[in-house]
């Protein structure tokens, strides 16, 4: 089991080549939990946009000069207990909540979205797909509110193409809270067909109201199930529609 020194760091000997890393130059911290698997992809996509991003191991804490935070996709703690539940209670999420309260932009993607909901950064929950299966495919999203930092690159009603890859992406929330979300214009993206129609057929996972992504209490906090970082690199010769979402950090 892990032991801790008085200073809170783990008990490595000081000559070890793997001390908890002090990352000083980072502006966007991509938080890596055990089981995260989209951390490298997020860094690659952000770097391609010219954003200074780096993976930060959750136990090392947020660097002091963190100006943006991405909680990436994956299977933190193996999704044991419930997707995102364990990570939501890890110490770094306290720091993420504090940073969010200070206005630092925080984006949760896929497992990061599940963690965001579990940690109370955003309302509702993402739970088992209606199909009860993992689904990896491109979907269409309609931009519901273009007047946020995350969607400023798009027009309201614009249709973008971004992939999903999840087994637990069905957005659920109590009806009254859902009504509040809609009334407050905090729904960012809804699953739609190629023509922008929000239909059951275009809903890949049974999400309430076809909701794919939402804002937190502050507009600087957002979560979504689709992967913008997978639709960002032009050399893969397909959609780069996800770039607009990541441009917040630029």
């Amino acid at each position: 089991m892990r032991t801790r020194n008085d200073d809170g760091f783990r008990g490595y000997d000081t000559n070890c080549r793997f001390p908890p890393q002090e990352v000083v130059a980072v502006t966007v911290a991509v938080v890596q939990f055990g089981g995260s698997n989209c951390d490298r992809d997020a860094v690659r996509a952000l770097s391609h946009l010219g954003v200074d991003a780096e993976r930060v191991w959750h136990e090392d804490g947020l660097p002091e000069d963190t100006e943006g935070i991405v909680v990436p996709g994956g299977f933190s703690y193996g999704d044991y207990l419930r997707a995102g539940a364990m990570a939501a209670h890890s110490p770094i999420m306290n720091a993420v909540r504090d940073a969010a309260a200070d206005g630092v932009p925080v984006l949760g993607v896929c497992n990061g979205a599940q963690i965001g909901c579990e940690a109370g950064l955003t309302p509702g929950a993402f739970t088992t797909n209606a199909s009860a299966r993992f689904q990896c495919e491109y979907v269409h999203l309609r931009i519901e509110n273009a007047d946020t930092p995350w969607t400023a690159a798009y027009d309201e009603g614009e249709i973008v193409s971004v992939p999903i890859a999840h087994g637990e992406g069905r957005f659920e929330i109590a009806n009254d809270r859902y009504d509040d979300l809609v009334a407050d214009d905090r729904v960012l993206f809804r699953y739609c067909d190629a023509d922008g129609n929000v239909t059951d057929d275009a809903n890949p996972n049974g999400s309430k109201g076809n909701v794919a992504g939402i804002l937190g209490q502050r507009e600087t906090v957002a979560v979504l199930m689709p992967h913008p970082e997978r639709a960002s690199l032009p050399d893969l010769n397909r959609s780069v529609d996800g770039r607009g979402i990541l441009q917040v950090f630029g």
Partner: protein
Amino acid sequence: MSLSDPDRELVTAELGRDPTPTEAALFENLWSEHCAYRSSRPLLSAFDSESDQVVVGPGDDAAVVSVPDNGGTEDSETYVTMGIESHNHPSYVDPYDGAATGVGGIVRDTLSMGAYPIALADSLYFGGFDREHTRYLLDGVVEGIADYGNAIGVPTVGGSVEFHDGYEGNPLVNVACVGLVDGERLVTAEAQAAGNKLVLVGNATGRDGLGGASFASEDLAEDAETEDRPAVQVGDPYSEKLLIEANEDLIDAGLVQSARDLGAAGLGGASSELVAKGGFGARIELDRVHQREPNMNPLEIVLAESQERMVYEVRLEDVDDVAAVAERYDLGCSVIGEVAEGNYVCTFEGSEPGERETVVDVPAEFLADGAPMNDLVTVEPPEPERNPPDVDVEAAFEAVVGSPNAASKRWVYRQYDHEVGTRTALRPGDDAAIVALREAGTGLAISSGAVPAWTDCAPYDGARAVALENATNLAAKGATPLAAVDCLNGGNPETPDVYGGFSAVVDGLADMCRELSVPVVGGNVSLYNDSVAGPIPPTPTLAMIGTKAGYDAPTAELDGDGALLLVGAGSDALGGSELLSQAGGTDRFPTLPENAPEVVATLADVADADATLSVHDVSTGGLAVALAELLTADAGADVAVDDAVSLFEETPGRAVVETTDPESVAEAFDDVAPVTRLGTATDDGSLSLDVGGEELTVDADRVAAIRGVLDEALD
């Protein structure tokens, strides 16, 4: 199972005494067919495994091949690793865990080389799709692969799914993994120096998978699903993911002298093979292994196949650093002993305090490589008669295009995360996947599969066809074949006609790979794939990689604006075709082109030409299926062929090319292969066929419905 009498005599003669129980169990497992390839190794010399690009050939955990540089982000040479593994018997007994642990094993083989895993491809073979039990197995295997591969963040980018009655009672799960490494980071499974410590990192050892290697070397009995469940291990992808990251940190810091993953025959297998390869022995204290269960005896510790474990050879001064990395990732870590001169020796605490009992003391090389080879009798299978069926074109089109073998496999690959890693430039569902190796500016094309109906009909030519078909898949995307690994699956080798078929398959695969100058750099053999339903068809899964400059490639979807050409020579023989499977009858296998390398090279050039709009390889179901797959909601085809045979025959080495410059294609193939004008692509999303005067028109919706049998039956 226990150590056979002849083997026991050999061991006793070598040791000059009776083996201890732990030694006997080690020899039984390491000398099993699964580990020692006793029946297949005499055949494997047929393969050429060398080329200028091969850095590490067969015999290590994975092979290593140098990738051509096309102006990438890294200055150093880029290498990829390739490995393939079967998890056939476990996947029958427990489809979910059996398949999942197959993924875990081949990924750790990749880690052993210091590489980071970047792609998986699975080739799966099941009994008839109409059987409920087949669907249960398919569902479990796919979910097992998905849950494991998705969680560890390695994209499953390709593979194949085949249904054939011969797999009833014995499905095949063949998993290939590609990893990324370079010369600086490369490590091997060859121990470097006596005195270096052996460090076990990963999950704690429990009593799981005891005797898995010998279990994998037996026929599956009728009651295997209940009787053999304890021999199947349970995977933990979370630990595997931590192991991937820990391995990466260890390699980054240069802390690893050599490495081997713990697979078949557990710690005993991995540690003895590692030291034997370096010409050393070892001193191992088995009670130092971190354990999950109390009171494990030495035999259990040395043979357990608990998953997600690696053994590293580490310099004494680096041991603390290795332990620190393991702790960072919450992984267990124990220094179990050291590389030593002399024998492979394992000790355990004795009955008296302070006393140590020697439970294993054998020459490492004798244990790892001393198994005698079997010299088995082969009988050549007969060639089928020519007795093709009468064909009603419309009924045959529906039956062949809608057969589970030809149908869309979207139901399968949608469950696999094929995008993670942000390298996937061409996704599953096409002829080959393309993975972006930005380090070298090179697109890595991956194709994997075999067609059991082909090798069932004609083991030798069918296996040649499998090799050519995989190469054609790569060429259709503009890639040049680089290397391959094989997974040779067969029935009980002690049956002469089964072994005859298997032996012909090995020769056929080896001959065509040699002809194509594709080195076969590694592989896996799985025999005793027999059940109450009989032996499986000999099944030579081949996973082939190829390369091209950049990551762009023509897709297998019509654009709608070009002329449609068929390139490559056809045949009037229907042997092995899906049409015969559906309509009955027998026929001989098609004759393959004599100039396969030229056909493949020319197709790769044509695929990359500016005027080329789409390219699709012709294989299972022939031209009928190729055209149906090319169809989209917006783009169709207007095509005429001479007769029904041309529509359904499956000669490999052919492709449909949609181009705006048909003359250039004909010119490129001049003296190489015939180019036939099929017709034109259209913008109406329907397929109009003129088959020797008989007309047939189907629209995209109808084709999608016919091709959607898996989705319809399984969701």
